[in-house]
């Protein structure tokens, strides 16, 4: 396997009117080429902010810690993302080596420019294609993502397409530059299950064809089970569990992951009542000390959980959990 991305100690705060909030707290993970990592967690847990950090795409009130280190491994050598300052530097990664699919497809297309012109422009910035070739490639790509009659769709505006088609067009644009890394932020959340299934298939084909790595953000564990090789679970800015998709979904170790699964309505079990996780996710202004999940955890061990931050421990070789229940000598 070839390492594609290393994120080490990512810590990110925002200066806001109400004070400084910690959106991401000491997050580390890595991704191999051709690998799909699912990032799950409730809204507000920091998934989008983490994803945007990989492209240094957060707004100017974002403050990264000094020890935050993000390395993208390209054929030409490693790129230290945090050291990129000018927009010319950043263009190497944004829309070039890394593409992002956003939660809201309308946001990624300018409303008054046709889809085709936007695709061509992006290709001309990031490759040495001429306009004619860029147009051919764009139409090919639209066709590839299953948009029928691609050459006439090419001339249309985003608002003229249905939700499913817009999402496909966005994927086509994101993939036309043949990125090494694709960051997909809730790419299917707004879609019907039928269209979602089509988009998931498409993304899997594209991993096979292009060998890119994907960070797939969603709060839908079913989607993760169907797409990801490995999973990281995030809560209030911290990773609490990570491992292969089978390990984490079949044998969840962290009380939060277990809670997410128990809250899920499952079709093959209509009799067990749905069990919500008690309470609400705290505001990032009032992050609990110790384990960030301690205010909602039914397994809370008391003093230890409210004072000490749990470290990542091995459950198996490719499955880790950050919870005091698994500390050596802890009574379970």
């Amino acid at each position, binding site marked *: 396997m070839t390492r594609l991305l290393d994120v080490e100690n990512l810590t990110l705060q925002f200066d806001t009117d109400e004070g400084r909030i910690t959106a991401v707290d000491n997050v580390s993970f890595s991704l191999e080429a051709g690998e799909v990592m699912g990032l799950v967690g409730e809204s507000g847990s920091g998934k989008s902010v983490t994803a945007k950090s990989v492209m240094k795409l957060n707004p100017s009130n974002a403050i990264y810690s000094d020890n935050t280190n993000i390395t993208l491994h390209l054929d030409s050598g490693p790129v230290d993302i945090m050291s990129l300052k000018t927009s010319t530097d950043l263009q190497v990664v944004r829309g070039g080596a890394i593409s992002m699919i956003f939660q809201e497809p309308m946001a990624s297309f300018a409303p008054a420019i046709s889809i085709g012109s936007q695709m061509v422009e992006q290709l001309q910035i990031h490759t040495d294609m001429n306009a004619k070739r860029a147009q051919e490639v764009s139409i090919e790509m639209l066709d590839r993502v299953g948009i029928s009659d691609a050459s006439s769709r090419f001339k249309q505006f985003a608002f003229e397409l249905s939700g499913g088609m817009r999402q496909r067009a966005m994927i086509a644009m994101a993939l036309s530059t043949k990125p090494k890394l694709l960051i997909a932020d809730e790419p299917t959340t707004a879609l019907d*299950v039928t269209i979602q299934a089509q988009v998931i298939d498409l993304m899997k084909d594209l991993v096979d064809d292009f060998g890119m790595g994907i960070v797939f953000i969603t709060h839908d564990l079913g989607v993760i089970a169907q797409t990801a090789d490995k999973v990281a679970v995030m809560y209030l800015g911290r990773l609490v569990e990570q491992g292969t998709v089978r390990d984490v979904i079949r044998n969840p170790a962290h009380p939060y992951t277990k809670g997410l699964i128990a809250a899920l309505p499952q079709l093959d079990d*209509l009799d067990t009542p749905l069990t919500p996780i008690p309470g609400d996710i705290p505001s990032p202004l009032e992050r609990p000390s110790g384990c960030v999940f301690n205010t909602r955890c039914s397994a809370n061990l008391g003093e230890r959980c409210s004072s000490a931050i749990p470290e990542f421990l091995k459950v198996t070789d490719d499955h880790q959990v950050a919870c005091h229940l698994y500390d050596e000598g802890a009574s379970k």
Partner: protein
Amino acid sequence: MSDDVLIEARDLSVHYPLRGGGLFGPKPVVRAVESVNLDIGKGNFFGLVGESGSGKTTLGKALLRAAPITRGSVQYDDGDAQYALTNLMGKDLKDYRKRAQLIFQDPYAALSPRMTVRDIIAEPLEVMGLTSSREETDERVREIAAKCRLNLEHLRRFPHAFSGGQRQRISIARALVSKPQFVVADESVAALDVSIQADVLNLLQEIQQEMGLTFLFISHDLSVVAHICDHVAVMYLGRLVETAPTRELFSAPKHPYTKALLSAIPSLDPDDRGKAQKLEGEIPSPTNQPSGCKFHTRCPYVTDLCRKEEPILQHSSDGHEVACHRWEELMD
């Protein structure tokens, strides 16, 4: 109309005129709901599913007399009061609105930011003139707030201070404060966190049983519907294509569209990948509908008959209805 039926729709159609239509010839219309026959039993938790644009919200609104009824009839009979909705006007319409309510389930759109929670919940009582004093209003508000597990302390606050789950409980309290018999819950935002969703679903179910309400629950999410509803109707391009008791629909679906919808739900088992029966394409435009069976453009079992003749909803077994020419053949 039988005694145990609360709402009976016959040949119900809702057509919206299309702006900018031709000057000559027939005006183009959006046929959002077409020839729907539907019985909702007293005390049912009735689910309505289908892809975006299939007409679920429009049908729900027509049953509340909040969308224009172009053709057909809707009867309401709760034992105390009877209404024929098609020509309902003036005082009768006002009276009907006390008995039939809509819950907006988009927790971020529905609540006015400048009103306190108490005023938001009290507003329907005041608008409908259901209470005669401030004390009585407060009493009703406190009663329903407690039922919806809202902290009474919270009544003085503004809604922006609340989480998604709490906002939903506020919307529910507001819809139920007038003590309606029939409630349409339109879950227009599918992207709720699973934990909040589980909490709200449990609350709805409790309240429904406690207050003996009849619910029409509109959702994209079949797993949710499977857990909470006792009957389900599946909609496609303005038509009902299948209705059945929930367990029957999920264990023995008969319409090819229902089968496709069910198989598109992402399984939580990572080893189930690729098993889904993929539905190609998208739902056709309701202004330019296909001939014959509206599903024929996507149906893997289409025949010439399907292209020519529209199947009608017919009884297939106890309480189970299906609109497909070939359902019997396709059983095995």
